[in-house]
């Protein structure tokens, strides 16, 4: 592995990301943890929307109205506040069509 110090060498690009270079300066570890953790959380949020949101359809021609297939007590949000999802039913005067 090259040990020259030019700007785009592998050593410099991966500084702080390899165990060897991190061992000399452990104090940047919280910053790395939060940075990559935040990136992961953002991507996980997007993936969750793509998979669980009632208005998202992955195959448009086959599934044009994905929200119609959702049960009456489907919980999308993680924190439900004061809503009691298991006992939800459609309002009594809503006709079934």
């Amino acid at each position, binding site marked *: 592995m090259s040990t020259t110090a030019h700007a785009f060498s592998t050593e410099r690009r991966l500084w702080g990301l390899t165990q060897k270079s991190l061992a000399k300066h452990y104090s940047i570890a919280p910053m790395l943890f939060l940075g990559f953790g935040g990136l992961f959380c953002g991507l996980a949020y997007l993936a969750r929307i793509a998979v669980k949101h*009632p*208005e998202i359809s992955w195959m448009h021609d086959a599934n044009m109205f994905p*929200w*119609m297939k*959702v049960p009456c007590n489907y*919980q*999308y949000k993680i924190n439900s506040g004061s809503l009691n*999802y298991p006992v939800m039913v459609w309002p009594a005067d*809503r006709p079934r*069509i």
Partner: protein
Amino acid sequence: MSETYVTKTAAFDVRFPNANQTKNCWQNYVDYHRCHKIKGESYEPCEYFKRVYRSMCPNEWIGKWDEQIESGTFAGKI
């Protein structure tokens, strides 16, 4: 004697959990007309959908869609 009014709005719809209720409005408008098409013109419970979309939808949209239905250019499948 004074009448007592029962005031209420559209119930929470799990199909549209977020702040954007556009599809809720659209779906209830379409469901109202589908209800009349399926159950007949004088089926009273269809008014449920009408109440919901009257609460949910901006009046400009309701007017525009009513005109489109009359002229046959409405985009939804009824």
